[in-house]
């Protein structure tokens, strides 16, 4: 009981997730900056930003529903934190593994996007509303390829549990090569999920101010920002667990490998972000359904065939 509580609240739960997501944001920003030949922020910048936002005045629009407006950031943060508990960190096993947790994690990760939509819609401001609609449109285009890209390895592994998938590929590491198309699809779709360039239309600052978060300020915005950072960590951890099957039994070494793997994912995501221009929402829908989804479908077909042959 005490250990579980420790696990949930401190490591690898809430507190670790918070610290690690701030570190992740820093890494993301510094790589982005260095690719642009800039100095980049100092190491404490994400924390300083967070604390500054926490200290700021929170302004709630008159027309907004106050309770929902205040609750949404917490929903987002809670969903992301809950999802983190089912992702393997120190080894093959996650904290509370069970058969089917992959689906649970994916659904928990959809909740932040839904809260973004609701946040935009509840703000009853023009820019937020347009951002909210865009977030929803985007959700429908990247969610399908992302799910399929993560389900394809699961089909091959014959389990719906993240820990199970990790264990399977740990035992048969060469099979991961089959999943390379799925990995590429996942990396692209994750950019959409995390609303990062080139898919950051919901909060395209040069078009919609801050999109869905236009009306958010102070500590509510701080929690939202934290949730987005944490989502980045969770998604990177899932990708690391599913597509990078390197695990060891030793907890400390396992944790180190986890950090390295997620950093690699963060690096790839940062490069992706640096070299692309933001595309239009209709271009994104077309791209996702025309290219990403067929590739993901093909991956599933391949995996089913392989599974059948085996």
């Amino acid at each position, binding site marked *: 009981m005490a250990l579980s509580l420790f696990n949930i609240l401190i490591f690898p739960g809430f507190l670790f997730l918070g610290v690690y997501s701030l570190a992740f944001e820093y890494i993301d920003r510094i790589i982005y900056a*260095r*690719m*642009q*030949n*800039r*100095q980049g922020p100092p190491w404490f910048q994400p924390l300083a930003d967070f604390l500054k936002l926490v200290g700021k005045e929170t302004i709630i629009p008159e027309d907004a529903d106050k309770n929902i407006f205040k609750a949404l950031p917490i929903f987002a943060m809670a969903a992301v934190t809950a999802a983190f508990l089912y992702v393997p960190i120190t080894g093959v096993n996650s904290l509370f593994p069970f058969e089917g947790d992959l689906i649970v994690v994916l659904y928990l990760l959809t909740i932040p996007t839904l809260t973004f939509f609701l946040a935009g819609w509840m703000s009853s401001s023009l820019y937020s509303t347009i951002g909210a609609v865009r977030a929803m449109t985007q959700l429908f285009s990247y969610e399908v390829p992302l799910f399929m890209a993560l389900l394809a390895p699961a089909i091959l592994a014959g389990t719906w549990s993240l820990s199970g998938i990790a264990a399977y590929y740990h035992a048969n590491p060469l099979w991961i090569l089959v999943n390379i198309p799925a990995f590429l699809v996942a990396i692209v779709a994750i950019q959409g999920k995390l609303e990062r360039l080139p898919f950051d239309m919901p909060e395209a600052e040069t078009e919609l101010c801050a999109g869905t978060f236009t009306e958010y300020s102070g500590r509510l915005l701080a929690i939202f920002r934290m949730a987005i950072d944490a989502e980045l960590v969770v998604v990177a951890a899932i990708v690391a667990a599913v597509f990078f099957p390197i695990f060891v039994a030793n907890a400390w070494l396992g944790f180190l490998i986890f950090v390295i793997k997620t950093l690699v994912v963060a690096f790839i995501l940062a*490069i*992706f972000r*640096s070299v*692309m221009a933001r595309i239009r929402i209709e271009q994104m829908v077309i791209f996702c359904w025309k290219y990403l989804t067929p590739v993901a479908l093909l991956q599933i077909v391949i995996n089913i065939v392989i599974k059948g042959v085996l």
Partner: protein
Amino acid sequence: MAYPGKITKFAMGHLSKAPATRAFPLGELIITPHFRGKLVLKADDCIGCGLCERDCPAYAIKVENRGTKENKDFHVTLNLAHCIFCCQCMDSCRKGCLSYTPNVQLAGFNKDDLIVDLTEEWKAAQAVSAEEAPAEEAAVDEAKPEE
């Protein structure tokens, strides 16, 4: 050939390069010697003709006689908040007693600090240099007013 993410190789190359930006208050401030910053006045040469005041587009520089008609005491004041650093006054000055310095960090918390008396400033600088400088130079400086 056209493909997405064409900048990738170029951008990755910059990971190993030193950044082009600097963290401003730290480190050195590099300003070209020809940069027009704050004005300084060589008050001894000033005859108070007011040509600088006439040509100043921002009405930033003022010449006033604080002494009497016989015993003139010209004071040149510069409002740094109005000054646009064009240095037209420098070109207009027949005596060449105005010059610029590369000093550009002029912001302050108080508006009154921005109105500077160039004559007083020059006198203060003279006093400091007279203290610090060797005796010979001080002698040269003192010799001038007597001429």
